[in-house]
């Protein structure tokens, strides 16, 4: 089904608004995020891997 133009424009306005809202935080964290230390990568890959496997399982169940 074709999305109405007004809905496309309204959605674009909403996204641009959130981009402007997020920009200061993105700039701040890009500059000030602490460097990754040993063990950090594994500490993130374990939960992310769990999420990916779980979502695949959900997608296969429907």
């Amino acid at each position, binding site marked *: 089904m074709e999305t109405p133009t007004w809905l496309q424009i309204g959605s674009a306005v909403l996204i641009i608004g959130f981009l402007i*809202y997020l920009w200061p935080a*993105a700039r701040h*964290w890009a500059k000030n995020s*602490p460097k990754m230390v040993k063990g950090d990568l594994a500490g993130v890959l374990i939960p992310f891997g769990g*999420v990916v496997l779980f979502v695949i399982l*959900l997608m296969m169940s429907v």
Partner: protein
Amino acid sequence: MNRYDSAIASGVSQSVPVNKVLKNTYMLLSATLIWSAVLAVVSMALNPSPLVSLGTSIVAMLLLWFVLPRTANSSAGVGMVFLITGLLGFGLGPTLNHYAAVPNGGQIISTAFGGTGVIFLGLSAYALTSKRDFSFMGGFIFIGMMVVMLASLVGIFVQIPALSLAISAAVVLLMSGLILFETSQIVRGGETNYIFATISLYLSIINLFTALLHLLGFMSGDD
């Protein structure tokens, strides 16, 4: 100053006990999720046009942007959180009605709902028990969200199913990262305002839910 600046500026200041922030955040988050779900059901029953849904989302964004930062340190902030989450919950109505109308729509919605709950609880438990510092993910998460939003902007006008699917998959990963990041910020004293913590976790949950809804809808051949 951006709220994330103030959060990092406060460092590990323990002027507000971490347990109190955590308890208040989870209590307010539970209440706002129930409130939001009630309004989503009301919205499904009323079946408003997508224009109403878009309007409530824009009003919620404006409140989040201009009003919440001014009220976050007073009791009015709690009311503002309910107003914002209520508007976002009401805005979900047309999307839920769209999925409810497809043959196995009920299963898609309930699977996305349950899946969101399991992912949120699992990641929160991991961040709380491991007590790891996930602040190194801040740059990746926020830049990632901006890239996804730019891709979504393109996706509005150039409707490519593969792009839409990739965006939903990226949103699931980014919101999972944001849950770990925000929970670790609370646990380590980097986030001392439970109103900001609540709204951040709420937005992660609602975005995770809609992304899962889209992925499951796509798999069942709806999108």
